[in-house]
């Protein structure tokens, strides 16, 4: 049996094979769709760019922390949401542990929006769409909009007077906006399924695309500081340290 094992493929991380080189197709296989997709993926996001060890010096600011804090809150929401799905409504309404997870889920959402708004403010004031980063900005904005829908359907799924009040008010609002034919916010089952399936998938996919775009284009550099006001970015530039990321500023 042991002679059937390919020893090259079992060496693991000690192997000296370059991952970029290993992505190249064998002669004659260049036209296969797998080779073309793999080549395009590696060219767009080589491993060193996908998960870099170091960041540009100007990233050393608390303003750059809000994005990952938003993502961390999203992970908490997903994990607690899965636990709530597994145990069901009677558990999250009646047991102490269920109420605890329900509360963690709610406060995860509060922190998610808190940090996402701060992330949005920071990126807006540094015009983070510069340097071919428009798609990164747009996926962030769309993620924010879809997240509002996810939170809204969550409030509708509370099964209490608050959710009844919100749904009847929202019904009038959505009808006035002309989209009432697509959503029946008084239909609890429909709203619960939007909340636990469609919208989380949409937010998760959008966040994934957003993060890959951030890695592809790099983090936007700050605006130049007027002469006489020295910052850590200026001092790094004076030392000749690399500041550039993918994409030129406009």
């Amino acid at each position, binding site marked *: 049996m042991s002679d059937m094992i390919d020893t090259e493929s079992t060496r693991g991380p000690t192997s000296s094979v370059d991952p970029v080189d290993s992505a190249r197709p064998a002669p004659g296989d260049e036209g296969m769709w797998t080779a073309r997709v793999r080549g395009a993926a590696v060219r767009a996001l080589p491993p060193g760019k996908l998960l870099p*060890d*170091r*960041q*540009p*010096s100007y*990233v*050393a*600011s*608390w*303003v750059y*922390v*809000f994005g990952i804090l938003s993502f961390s809150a999203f992970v908490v929401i997903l994990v607690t949401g899965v636990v709530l799905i597994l145990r069901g409504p009677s558990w999250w309404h009646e047991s*102490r542990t269920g*109420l605890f997870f329900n509360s963690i889920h709610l406060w995860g959402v509060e922190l998610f929006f*808190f940090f996402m*708004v*701060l992330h949005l*403010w*920071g990126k807006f004031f540094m015009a983070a769409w510069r340097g071919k980063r428009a798609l990164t900005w747009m996926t962030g904005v769309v993620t924010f909009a879809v997240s509002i829908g996810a939170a809204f359907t969550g409030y509708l799924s509370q099964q209490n007077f608050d959710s009844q009040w919100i749904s009847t008010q929202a019904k009038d609002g959505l009808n006035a906006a002309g989209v009432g034919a697509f959503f029946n916010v008084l239909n609890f089952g429909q709203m619960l399924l939007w909340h636990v399936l469609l919208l989380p998938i949409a937010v998760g996919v959008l966040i994934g695309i957003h993060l890959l775009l951030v890695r592809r284009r790099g983090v936007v550099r700050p605006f130049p500081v007027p002469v006489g006001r020295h910052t850590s970015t200026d001092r*790094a530039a004076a030392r000749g*340290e*690399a500041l550039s990321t993918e994409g030129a500023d406009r």
Partner: protein
Amino acid sequence: MLGALVDLSHPGHYLHWGFIQLSVANFVVIVLMIVVFVAAVAIPFRSGGRHR
């Protein structure tokens, strides 16, 4: 079971500025966000030298 830190058994408090109507809870969150944002810009970040 512990009760809520704030007594929730009454209508919420609201602020009114002309046509603007805002709950005290939302106002507190907005002020907190502004405070955290200003602090993030003003407070130095200890990078630990892991930058280039």
